[in-house]
């Protein structure tokens, strides 16, 4: 049987991305591939999944946007504090250099390791409003969009996707973000006959394929995902529509998106 308990690691750097989000640099070497995630534990509080947002010789990074109690606690931790880490978990992206990236919100964190790897790949990144932008210094040159027009181009990151794919002949589109954005990206890729891989999110508990909380159709997002082939997800009965909440009851993706927008505005 596996031995897979959280390991305590120190926060060695803390970058303030904006007034809602921080990037924490954790002093732990993890052999991961882009798309994989970690379970981050604050002892005595809770444990949640986070995409691995990057790495260097000192360790790995996660980006935390404040949503609820746990993310508020985690994003408030100072350099020198410790968190528990287990992972990496999940399936990674299959890598193709001739690609472009479509990121929505903090979903950018999941794609950032690909952007590090393929530094010439075009990035389309959108937020509801400009003050939510992350990775200003890390990725200063990208196509930035805001829904409210407060920064970058007014619109969403899929607006210019079709034109770019046709111009540059990208062979792969990587996407992570709100489900409506992912659906749009998958449809555009499908219509142009371009491969598309996406990383999705569900309420996660065990992270190891046992509890059934992160189910999406017949698949478990923690072990069968979080990265899926776009074509596969287009035929998944739950994707884009519903997910389980903490109790195991269905909640509507549309309602969640609406609440998130109201919270941000």
């Amino acid at each position, binding site marked *: 049987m*596996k031995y897979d308990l959280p390991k305590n690691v120190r926060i060695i750097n803390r970058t303030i991305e904006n007034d809602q989000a921080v990037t924490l640099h954790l002093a732990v070497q993890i052999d991961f591939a882009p798309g994989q995630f970690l379970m981050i534990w604050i002892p005595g509080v*809770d444990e949640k999944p986070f995409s691995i947002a990057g790495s260097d010789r000192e360790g790995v990074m996660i980006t935390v946007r404040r949503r609820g109690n746990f993310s508020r606690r985690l994003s408030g931790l100072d350099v020198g504090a410790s968190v528990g880490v287990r992972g990496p978990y999940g399936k990674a992206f299959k890598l193709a250099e001739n690609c472009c990236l479509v990121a929505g919100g903090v979903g950018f964190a999941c794609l950032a390791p690909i952007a590090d790897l393929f530094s010439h790949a075009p990035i389309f990144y959108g937020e509801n409003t400009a003050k939510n932008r992350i990775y200003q210094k890390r990725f200063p040159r990208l196509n930035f969009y805001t829904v409210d027009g407060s920064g970058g181009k007014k619109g969403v990151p899929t607006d210019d996707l079709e034109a770019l794919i046709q111009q540059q002949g990208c062979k792969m589109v990587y996407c992570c973000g709100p489900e409506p954005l992912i659906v749009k990206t998958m449809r555009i890729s499908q219509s142009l006959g371009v491969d598309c891989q996406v990383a999705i999110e569900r309420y996660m508990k065990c992270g190891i394929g046992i509890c059934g909380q992160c*189910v999406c159709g*017949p698949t478990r997002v923690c072990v069968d995902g979080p990265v899926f082939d776009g074509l596969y997800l287009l035929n998944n009965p739950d994707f884009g529509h519903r997910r389980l909440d903490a109790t195991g*009851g269905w909640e509507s993706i549309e309602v969640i998106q609406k609440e998130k927008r109201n919270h941000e505005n």
Partner: protein
Amino acid sequence: MIKNLDLSVELFGCMLKNPIILASGILGTTRNLLRMVSQNGAGAVTIKSISVDPRKGHPNPTVLAFGHGLINAVGYSNPGLEKAVQEFSDLHEIGCPVIGSIIGTCVEDFSRVAIEFDKLEFSALEVPLSCPHTPEYGKMGNQDNPDAVFRIVSAICSNTSKPLLVKVPPAANDLVEMALAAKAAGAYGITAVNTVGPGMLIDIDSGKPYLGFGMGGISGPAIKPLAVAAVFQLYKAVDMPIIGTGGVSTGRDVIEMIMAGASAVGIGTAVLSRGLSVFQEITEEIKQLLLERGVSSIADIRGLAHEV
């Protein structure tokens, strides 16, 4: 694949294509996942336990692999009866018999869930009266004794004609008395055993227990000897079908449970160690082991360890 060897068993009035049953609490959250497990070869599947009201369960970490199995304190998170009735409709589409698991804090709760589950296509019901880590339920609700078993089983059986399995704790002094009480109250069979516990693991760096709830139930290879002994004791003392559950992860383990007296076997933690293919693989392993021994059916070896 080995053919011409029939592993089917009759249980709660159904023919199971093999004696391997998905245990409650593992992957049983939705009908799609149950169907997935069925397609992967399970003989029957059990849903995650349902209470009258929705429950969020304990904070994470709720399930951890500690090297010898799992320690868990999920805390019975479930969407509640109303949503469960919607989710677990049209169960004939699952492709194998489905067992409905019921939890409650009082006799009335068990009855309310039983009344609604009676209308669904569950082949059997199960009531775990032995959870070691959820306040007001199982051990922490003082439900793991013959009196409570009798009251709860009587209440459920007066509200449904579906066969009822009672899930008992391992290493209990009054294990046999609990099973006898279950039988006297109208239960069909015993699921032996629930997770062992409470257990606890502490992170020595933070000085805090790993599990969000602190204590949890232990499952997996570490508890198999306890489960085999419980099945052995129950088979000797009580004439009821037993589903041997606890640490089963190979075909050999299944044969062992059946020789102890089990009619079928529950699989949970092995989904972690071997993946969803565990059901199909174990079935093949059982066939191979039976062939090697010149045994043509499971019934021929049931309770073999009791022969003198």
